[in-house]
């Protein structure tokens, strides 16, 4: 057992509780007498307190305890005074900030002032300004002894101080220590004498097994001063070194980069994965035997079963990475409340489909863009009063996440005018944009239709950032809007980053992969159907005209786009910024699932390459993201002036 393993889990779980608290606090404000909300909040605060205490995060635990106490007073009173809601919100913000500090391994923010309360009548005995070393705030788990006059200042509710401190201590043995597990047990016994062991690594059970062990780590609550504890431990024979967590923090917060990389997994799913891999082991032996005995029918049968198992295992493993959208929408109700209050607008907020799951990495990256979009909806969309809704649903291999409002809506004509006025487009270019393309103009850096710059959104409001984030994850952003009715910002995101369906094509003699999520359709186009420019080549399909590019040429290869020879052209119709386009390739080779590996420097700098995958024969195959290829500087000059404006 190693506390650092629990660290990630702690943060991911703490954030879930915080999100829940945030939701509940907003609900509480609307219904201050709702007993269930108060109870639920109390439970959340209680959970955070317990978790933080177990991790030795005393400040966070004390603060959570404080909130819990305040809620307990409220529970007795029956209704929450408005002033207390504000205080709870402030305390919650502080707790969230504190958790941020802990996760980033930076000095914790001051909570003493908050704990002392607005009235400052009852302050914390040991929470002076200089509380960094050694930390001695009130301890978690301490029952609020004698909750004094509960009538006085309901916002009060201060935890009392319990004796002792919590240390993370590591004891190392001399390298030649004999019977090291026994020695470690002696150390554990000494720790037990010194105080209460909150956690221990390795566990007593492991030590009792007698495995070699030269290092014991423990979270210890003790009344002993650090120096005294150190002395006691060093008095044990063969102890080489005793360190406390803070000593080692000076080595640098290496772990912080690991933060946010953990995923909580249902044990049921884990069991399935373990069972499957177990079955695979069995089949391996069957395969080995069949191969030894040259039993071809047995070999074939086992191979087929193995293939089925691998597929199943793979499917389950992918699910390990999935988390529900609601894991990142928890903070939005609070955001809406605060923004509404600040701007004097009455905004209601809903999340539909919060249970839709996405890859954890995608969710992490989407959290900020979602905040941006909700913010924008309130700042620029809603006038006076309205509703913002976040909707999520599965659409084949994609998840649609939509942020919609019933506010002013955007006028494509106005957006065109603005873009021209800001010299972002020429008048002719603007004129040629479809309405859909015109709406996407808001994603250009520095573009804003807001007449006034609001405190929250500012100008341009990071729509370019939102768009970039979405596309980096392999998603697309689309905007629908009707003046007077509202706007919808639609994000189509892949479910998972690691495995995607790809279309295999050949191009300039090389096999290449295109993510299937980008592909609308493929077709073989008679050479005669190609409309030769100017401004470039195009073709008609279902009454619409599509620009036709050569993928090889976009990738910087030789211009082989000639249609001489009269042969049919292989064309892939793909999603491109603004509108779909056709990409000419040498041949269409089929589709398959591919495990995406990211590219290292300098290959990751090449525009349009989103990764690589290993082909069946072991060769490396690049994954082309035509969306970026068309958007970046990759478009040949002669296409730039085409009627198909590239945003």
């Amino acid at each position, binding site marked *: 057992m190693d506390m650092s393993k629990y660290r990630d889990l702690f943060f991911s779980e703490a954030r879930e509780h915080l999100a829940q608290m945030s939701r509940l606090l907003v609900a509480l404000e609307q219904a201050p007498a709702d007993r269930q909300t108060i109870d639920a909040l109390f439970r959340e605060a209680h959970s955070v307190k317990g978790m933080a205490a177990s991790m030795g995060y005393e400040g966070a635990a004390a603060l959570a305890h404080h909130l819990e106490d305040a809620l307990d007073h409220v529970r007795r009173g029956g209704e929450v005074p408005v002033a207390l809601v504000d205080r709870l919100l402030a305390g919650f913000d502080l707790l969230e900030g504190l958790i941020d500090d802990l996760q980033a391994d930076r000095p914790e923010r001051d909570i003493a002032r908050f704990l002392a309360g607005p009235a400052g009548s009852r302050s914390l005995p040991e929470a002076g300004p200089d509380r960094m070393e050694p930390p001695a705030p009130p301890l978690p788990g301490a029952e609020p002894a004698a909750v004094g006059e509960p009538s006085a200042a309901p916002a009060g509710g201060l935890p009392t101080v319990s004796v002792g401190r919590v240390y993370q201590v590591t004891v190392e043995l001399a390298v030649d220590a*004999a*019977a090291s*597990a*026994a020695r470690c*047990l002696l150390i554990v016994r000494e720790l037990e004498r010194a105080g209460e062991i909150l956690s221990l690594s390795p566990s007593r059970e492991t030590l*009792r097994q007698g495995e070699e062990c030269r290092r014991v780590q423990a979270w210890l609550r003790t009344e002993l001063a650090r120096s005294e504890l150190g002395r006691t431990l060093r*008095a044990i*024979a063969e102890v080489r070194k005793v360190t406390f967590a803070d000593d080692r923090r000076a080595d640098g917060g290496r772990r912080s980069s690991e933060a946010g990389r953990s995923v909580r997994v249902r044990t049921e799913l884990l069991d399935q994965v373990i069972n499957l891999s177990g079955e695979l082991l069995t089949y391996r032996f069957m395969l080995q035997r069949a191969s030894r005995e040259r039993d071809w029918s047995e070999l074939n049968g086992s191979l087929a079963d193995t293939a089925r198992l691998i597929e199943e295992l793979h499917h389950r493993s992918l699910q390990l990475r999935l988390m529900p959208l609601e894991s990142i929408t928890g903070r939005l109700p609070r955001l809406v409340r605060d923004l509404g209050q600040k701007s004097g607008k009455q905004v209601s907020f809903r999340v539909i489909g919060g249970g839709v799951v996405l890859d954890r990495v995608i969710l992490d990256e989407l959290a900020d863009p979602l905040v941006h979009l909700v913010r924008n909806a309130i700042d620029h969309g809603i006038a006076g009063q309205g509703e913002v809704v976040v909707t999520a649903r599965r659409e084949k291999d994609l998840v649609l996440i939509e942020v919609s409002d019933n506010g002013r809506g955007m006028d494509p004509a106005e957006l065109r005018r603005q873009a021209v006025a800001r010299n972002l487009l020429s008048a002719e270019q603007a004129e040629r944009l479809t309405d859909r393309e015109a709406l996407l103009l808001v994603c250009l850096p520095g573009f804003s239709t807001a007449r006034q710059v609001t405190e929250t959104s500012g100008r341009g409001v990071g729509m370019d950032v939102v768009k970039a984030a979405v596309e980096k994850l392999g998603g697309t952003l689309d905007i629908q809007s009707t003046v007077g009715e509202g706007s919808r910002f639609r994000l189509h995101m892949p479910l998972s980053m690691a495995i995607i369906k790809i279309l295999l094509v050949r191009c300039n003699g090389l096999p290449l992969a295109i993510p299937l999520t980008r592909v609308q359709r493929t077709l073989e186009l008679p050479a005669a159907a190609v409309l030769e420019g100017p401004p470039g080549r195009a073709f008609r399909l279902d009454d619409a005209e599509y620009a036709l590019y050569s993928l090889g040429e976009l990738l910087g290869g030789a211009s082989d786009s000639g249609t001489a020879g009269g042969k049919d052209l292989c064309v892939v119709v793909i999603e491109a910024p603004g509108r779909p386009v056709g990409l000419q390739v040498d041949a269409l080779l089929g589709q398959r699932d591919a495990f995406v590996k990211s590219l290292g420097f300098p290959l990751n700098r090449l525009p349009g390459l989103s990764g690589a995958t290993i082909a069946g024969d072991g060769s490396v195959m690049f994954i082309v993201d035509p969306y970026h290829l068309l958007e970046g500087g990759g478009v040949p000059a002669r296409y730039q002036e085409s009627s198909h404006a590239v945003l």
Partner: protein
Amino acid sequence: MSLNVMIVDDALFMRNMLKDICQRAGYAVVAEADSGEAALELYRQHRPDLVTMDIVMPKRSGIEALQEIMAEDPAARVVMISALGQDALVIEAIEAGARDFIIKPFKEERVLDVMRRVTVPR
């Protein structure tokens, strides 16, 4: 500081060796037992400050003797003497209340170091 030590070991050679070490350090060896069986009775009689206890002995093992002594006097300071590779027994002894242990073959300083550490008043 003078200590009263009791040595429990079935091998005379080991008892003598430990006795010499103790005496050179100025400790008094107040009792010697050649089996676990005899250990408890001698402990009762002498109430030594420290017991060295061989872990493997015929008839009654060092661990059994340790348990008996600990039951008699929970404050007893018993140091186990064990051969290499008997970690499981050492662990068992520690769980049963042994204060520390020494692995054979040992050096004089090592024995004295453990004896000192164990008898430091705390």
